[in-house]
């Protein structure tokens, strides 16, 4: 057996590295020390891969009659007679005991019936005064409310994939009365209860695109952004499973020593590769960022664990939305996030109409008349929301324009 590996590392550190819970500096330090031991490094990566595979395992299908079966075979008898783990005990009985028990129960029932008939407790008539008639009355009683119905009647929190929530107040702002202004402008409250007044440099909004070929849409958006007389950033938001899958594939490629395109493209944000052009996309690549799990905390009891989410960034980092915003968009279902300097917002909006029909959002947008400027578009936002809801479509969601 070769020299034990990992012996120079704290188990807690290694676990944290596997669990993606160690800070980047510490992770880099551990990896640096592992470089001299390729076996240990390979093992570490495999442990991480196993973890990722486990986290994306197929979910077993719950038997449809699980609860119904539980109710009829377990709970009712249990509630009638609290016999503890009766089913298992019942199963463990020997067969002859079951027969004896069944005969005993049958005998008791027959004797009880004979006694009841003889004493007049139970009559065989069906007159209104007979017990059977009362039973018939019970049949006409209202059907009991099922658990599903009661569950549905409970006030439900809006689902994460339902955006915007029907009863939500979306706080966003009309940032610029005239988009052409580059200097400080007073914001006009469009919805919500606050105003923003600042010098704006970039307008960012999320775009939700559904039911279309993502690559084609990406090409369209790139073309439109490329036509702007300014820099712009386009971020394609990956879903969490996509990101997991991507990261796993990347690690596997690296593990196999494959110099894949994915491996070349997948870089940390700071090290994002240059695209060879200055405008409008000076850099592009897959970015990986970390953030405390938000929506997972609500559903999976993780309140502080970090998750890694990736997105495709096309454009300068300085124009990209903050990671928190990107995640917010992704969690709201946004597939794209676009950033442009605010003075070019009008131009962008006008040009995006060229893509009418390419996306649900843009079709809704275009059908209701041209959005010739950000001010008009934003003032038209309630109608856009309304029409999108009618079409079960999606909307463009404006967000706070940053200073």
């Amino acid at each position: 057996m070769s020299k034990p590996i990992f012996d120079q590392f704290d188990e807690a550190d290694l676990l944290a590295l596997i669990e993606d819970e160690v800070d980047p500096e510490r992770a880099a330090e551990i990896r640096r020390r592992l470089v001299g031991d390729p076996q240990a490094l390979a093992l570490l990566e495999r442990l991480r891969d196993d973890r990722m595979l486990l986290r994306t395992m197929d979910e077993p299908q719950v038997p449809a009659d699980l609860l119904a079966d539980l109710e009829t075979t377990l709970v009712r008898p249990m509630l009638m007679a609290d016999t503890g783990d009766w089913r298992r005990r019942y199963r463990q009985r020997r067969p002859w005991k079951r027969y004896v028990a069944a005969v005993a129960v049958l005998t008791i029932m027959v004797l009880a019936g004979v006694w009841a008939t003889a004493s007049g407790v139970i009559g065989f008539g069906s007159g209104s005064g007979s017990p059977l008639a009362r039973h018939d009355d019970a049949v006409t009683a209202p059907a009991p409310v099922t658990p599903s119905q009661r569950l549905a009647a409970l006030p439900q929190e809006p689902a994460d994939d339902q955006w915007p929530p029907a009863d939500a107040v979306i706080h966003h702002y009309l940032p610029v009365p005239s988009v052409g202004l580059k200097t400080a402008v007073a914001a006009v409250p469009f919805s919500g209860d606050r105003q923003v007044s600042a010098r704006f440099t970039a307008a960012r909004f999320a775009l939700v695109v559904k039911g279309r070929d993502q690559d084609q849409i990406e090409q369209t958006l790139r073309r439109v952004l490329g036509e702007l007389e300014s820099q712009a950033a386009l971020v394609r938001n990956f879903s969490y499973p996509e990101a997991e899958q991507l990261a796993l594939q990347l690690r596997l490629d690296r593990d196999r020593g494959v110099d894949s395109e994915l491996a070349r493209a997948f870089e940390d944000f700071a090290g994002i590769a240059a695209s060879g052009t200055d405008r409008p996309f000076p850099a592009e690549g897959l970015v990986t960022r970390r953030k405390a799990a938000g929506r997972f905390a609500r559903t999976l009891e993780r309140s502080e664990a970090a998750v890694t989410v990736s997105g495709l960034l096309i454009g300068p980092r300085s124009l990209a939305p903050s990671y928190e915003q990107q995640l917010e968009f992704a969690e709201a279902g946004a597939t794209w996030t676009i950033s442009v300097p605010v003075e070019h917002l009008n131009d962008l909006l006008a040009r995006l109409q060229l893509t009418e029909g390419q996306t649900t959002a843009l079709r809704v947008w275009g059908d209701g008349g041209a959005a010739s400027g950000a001010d008009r578009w934003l003032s038209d936002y309630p109608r856009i929301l309304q029409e999108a809801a009618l079409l079960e479509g999606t909307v463009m969601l404006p967000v706070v324009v940053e200073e």
Partner: protein
Amino acid sequence: MESQRRHPIDPTAAPLTPLAELQLVEAHRGGDPDAMGQLLEAYQRRLYSICYRMVRNEHDARDLTQDSMVRVIQGLDSYDGRSKLSTWIIRVTMNTCLSYLRKQRLRRHGSLDLASEDSAGGPIDPRSKGELLPTSRVELSEMRSVLGRAMMRLDPDMRAVLVLRDMQDLEYQSIAHSLEVPIGTVKSRLFRARLALRTAVEVELGPGGGDHGVEDVKANI
């Protein structure tokens, strides 16, 4: 078995908020006959998933889920609210599973020593396993299947910590409450479980699927 892809947000599920859960508990204690049904309905998917992961057998998973639900029904009055209801229910379920698996193990009189079987794979050059690593969706699916089988080679306590951590996405604190062990034990067990799982995967993959790094680590801890 029919299955569906896991997704952090399952649109078909109807998770209850902690407040709604507590309201249902109170309603149950107040005599509402439907409150328990609603609770179980909300939890059935999760409980079945835990049980299935622990036994990897639909029939047993069904029985264990139902047994767990019965225990929840029987014990709900004793739930004191010191931990989250979900944690308490998971603890009940996991105890049911572990108890069942320990009995199963006793019945086998230790004839199947998984630990020794795990280490039977022998040292293998890690590079040689590169050929076996999944590169496509199909291979990933196959790899998940291997992992599923490998899970069954683990000691139930180790399997439990992996199920709760990776498949139920619980925090260490919740796992500690669910398994009734200190957090330090959870972390230590989790690390060893990952190593054991890797060894078991290599056993599943057969000759050529081993990795002497795992053995070295196991010898070292």
